């Protein structure tokens, strides 16, 4: 059967046409006998072009179409829909990438780029001839989302999804929820502090019948795919079954002999093995840190809600989609980076913010009252030598906001050693306010970093100020605060488990920053908040809400349409050897018997269309729909023709 094929070649404005002779490409394929019509178009994706294509398909009764334009990653769906509107099966469409892999990659050699485009279009035509009509697979979707990370992003997304009628399993690795925001006090743009924001979200979550909260829980394995993910959770007990009586808890802390660095306060102080990060923390039950607990049993004597014999539980859950809101870690300066850890008056911004939280009246650090502070910006961001080339976005504003707070609270004057203040948008007002308070902003050359030294009890920052035509300044301060940026979580094992792609910055990567900013290439796995890139709280919330709506529209209908890319067995050629079944990572190939012959059979629900079974078959009895021998071979031939 001969097909009537329509071919469209896109100028993409100048993107393609500047380097590829689009008309020549059209001419060279127009004569092909299967090509019923061929056209060039300024923007194939524009509405009017799409409309023209639909008209063509209908009026000329085309059997299949080829569009040579940009990467299929952008517009495969667009033109498949065109095919459908024209009355075709959407798989009778092939997209040829002559932009990313044509005009742009070979803008240096236009003639050769044109040649390549011709070959690519020919291959596309060859492939579309072999294309079959297919119906998408429909799979059942669980209307439930697993949210990993119960910081504000995760909490907010949970509430939103639950309100939209989707069940949520909210999974937090720590024993307490609230993430980073619970560590900050006064927040920018709000009268509320971090604790209050977290409290409100927690109360909504805990009361919501659609949300199940898991604390001390880690995701350790996953199987399945979109609509039907099976997750294995490891739940570490808190060893405290209900809240100890008020006096009893204090006593338990008092007698606990273990003392470890308090990570919640960034090691500014120590905590015991039985602990709460702050008085009103959520959930309201203390936890015992079993990594450090010596099981001495002393606490058992004062609080009878403690049970040191609780065991780790493994639980399996099934969800339709997974939302990652695992947040960030503050950058930890290496030893001696700006004298960190070598001079005792050098601390990080995160430590400093905790210090401010813990110091109600006077700011005292290491027994000395602090009167002046030097902030050093871009520590761990915009690195010249290190790997972190990116801007951490939130730190300028955060440091300046803190400077305003401490000016108000303790009348502290601050010096800001920066590399160009980036208080974008309305945050600029904070920069203005701080300047008006008399805070001094010193700009330094990243190649000439400030040097911190100590002269007796006095800490001195030596810095070359670009704004004073490179005057070298000696600034005496009481405390140096390193404005450390955001880095991805140190323990990012979740990325390995879920196969989420990691970007240049090592944060999770979205599909497209503008088109699909909260989705990943793994279907059904979404990302929100600072795990995607540095963000402030508002921005994190926005992305988590956006992710919530994507998750909801993906799974709430109860079923999901999937690509019908499946393996098929040609029974006649199959002599069951089992190699394909061994190769399949999803256990989708089984032995069956047809008319007495032992052959392989594909379980469509499990087949993910990876094609791993194809090369192992000794008799070449397996094809992958959409990538059949005929399709691939016709392309191989056409490309060199």
């Amino acid at each position, binding site marked *: 059967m001969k097909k009537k094929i329509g071919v469209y070649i896109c100028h993409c404005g100048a993107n393609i046409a500047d380097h590829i002779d689009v008309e020549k490409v059209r001419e060279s394929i127009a004569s092909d006998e299967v090509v019923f019509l061929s056209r060039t178009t300024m923007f194939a994706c524009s509405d009017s072009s799409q409309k023209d294509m639909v008209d063509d398909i209908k009026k000329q009764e085309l059997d299949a179409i080829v569009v040579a334009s940009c*990467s299929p*990653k952008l517009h495969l769906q667009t033109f498949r829909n065109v095919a459908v509107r024209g009355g075709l099966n959407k798989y009778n469409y092939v997209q040829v*990438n002559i*932009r*990313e*892999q*044509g*005009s*742009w*990659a*070979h*803008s*240096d*050699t236009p*003639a*050769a*780029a*044109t*040649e*390549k485009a011709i*070959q*690519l279009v020919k*291959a596309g035509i060859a492939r579309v001839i072999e294309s079959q009509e297919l119906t998408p697979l429909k799979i059942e979707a669980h209307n439930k989302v697993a949210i990993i990370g119960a910081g504000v992003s995760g909490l907010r997304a949970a509430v939103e999804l639950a309100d939209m009628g989707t069940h949520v399993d909210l999974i937090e690795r720590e024993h307490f929820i609230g993430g980073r925001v619970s560590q900050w006090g006064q927040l920018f743009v709000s009268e509320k502090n971090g604790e209050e924001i977290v409290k409100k979200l927690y109360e909504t979550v805990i009361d919501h019948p659609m949300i199940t909260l898991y604390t001390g829980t880690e995701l350790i394995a996953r199987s399945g795919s979109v609509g039907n993910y099976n997750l294995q959770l490891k739940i570490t007990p808190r060893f405290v079954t209900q809240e100890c009586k008020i006096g009893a808890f204090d006593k338990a802390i008092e007698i606990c002999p273990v003392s470890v660095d308090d990570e919640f306060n960034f090691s500014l102080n120590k905590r015991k093995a039985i602990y709460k990060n702050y008085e009103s923390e959520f959930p309201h039950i203390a936890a015992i840190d079993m990594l450090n607990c010596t099981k001495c049993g002393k606490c058992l004597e004062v609080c009878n809600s403690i049970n040191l014999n609780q065991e780790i539980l493994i639980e399996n859950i099934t969800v339709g989609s997974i939302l990652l809101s695992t947040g960030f870690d503050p950058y930890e300066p290496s030893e001696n980076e700006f004298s960190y850890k070598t001079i005792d008056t050098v601390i990080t911004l995160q430590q400093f913010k905790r210090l401010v939280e813990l110091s109600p009246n006077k700011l005292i650090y290491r027994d000395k009252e602090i009167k002046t502070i030097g902030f050093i910006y871009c520590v761990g961001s915009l690195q010249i030598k290190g790997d972190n080339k990116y801007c951490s976005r939130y730190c300028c504003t955060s440091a300046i906001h803190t400077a305003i707070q401490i000016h108000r609270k303790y009348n502290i004057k601050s010096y800001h050693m920066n590399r160009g203040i980036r208080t974008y948008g309305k945050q600029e007002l904070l920069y203005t306010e701080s300047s008006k308070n008399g805070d001094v902003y010193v700009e330094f050359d990243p190649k000439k970093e400030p040097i911190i030294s100590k002269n007796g009890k006095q800490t001195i920052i030596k810095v070359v100020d670009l704004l004073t035509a490179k005057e070298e300044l000696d600034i005496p301060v009481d405390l140096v605060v390193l404005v450390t940026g955001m880095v991805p979580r140190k323990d990012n094992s979740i990325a390995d488990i879920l*196969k989420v*792609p990691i*970007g*240049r910055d090592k944060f999770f*990567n979205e599909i497209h920053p503008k088109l699909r900013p909260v989705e990943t*290439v*793994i279907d059904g796995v979404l990302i929100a908040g600072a795990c995607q890139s540095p963000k402030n709280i508002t921005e994190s919330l926005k992305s988590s809400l956006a992710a919530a709506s994507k998750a909801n529209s993906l799974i709430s209908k109860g079923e999901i349409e999937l690509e019908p*890319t499946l393996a098929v067995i040609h029974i006649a050629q199959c002599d069951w050897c089992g190699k394909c079944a061994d*190769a399949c*990572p*999803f256990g989708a190939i089984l032995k069956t018997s047809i008319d007495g012959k032992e052959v392989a059979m594909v379980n469509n629900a499990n087949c*993910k*269309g*990876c*094609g*791993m079974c*194809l*090369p192992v078959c000794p008799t*070449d009895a397996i094809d*992958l729909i959409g*990538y059949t*021998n005929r399709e*691939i*071979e016709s*392309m*191989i*031939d056409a*490309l*060199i023709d």
Partner: protein
Amino acid sequence: MSETTKNTAIKVLVFSTEKISDPAIDLAGLLKLHYPPTVYVIPLPCSSAVKPKWILRAFEKGYDGVFIAADGTDCSFSESCVEKTSDIIAQTHILMKEKGISPAKLKMAAICSVCAEPFVKHMNNFVEELTRNKIN
């Protein structure tokens, strides 16, 4: 002029993967990183799906080299992908030897979803190497 290049240029067939290495190849274009225009890409779902017979067919048809832009450890289907792709290469190498095709004409490397620069480097080196071998 294009006619002459067409006949003498080194032609390379690349099997890429839709979710991992193909985005990197697209990215190379986006960043205007140049590699020889006689490199043609056929994307598959996974690099472990390349049939040796396709590779052999490519050589038969006159390609000078075949490159598999593998998923490597980034594969979203299975961790065994690296191993499986290597097996395919090893198996094909044997078949190539039987047919008297130099094993140097088939190469693979893991190309991550943002490995645009490594991809371009691989292509330039591969084509250069193939050119050298062809002349010699």
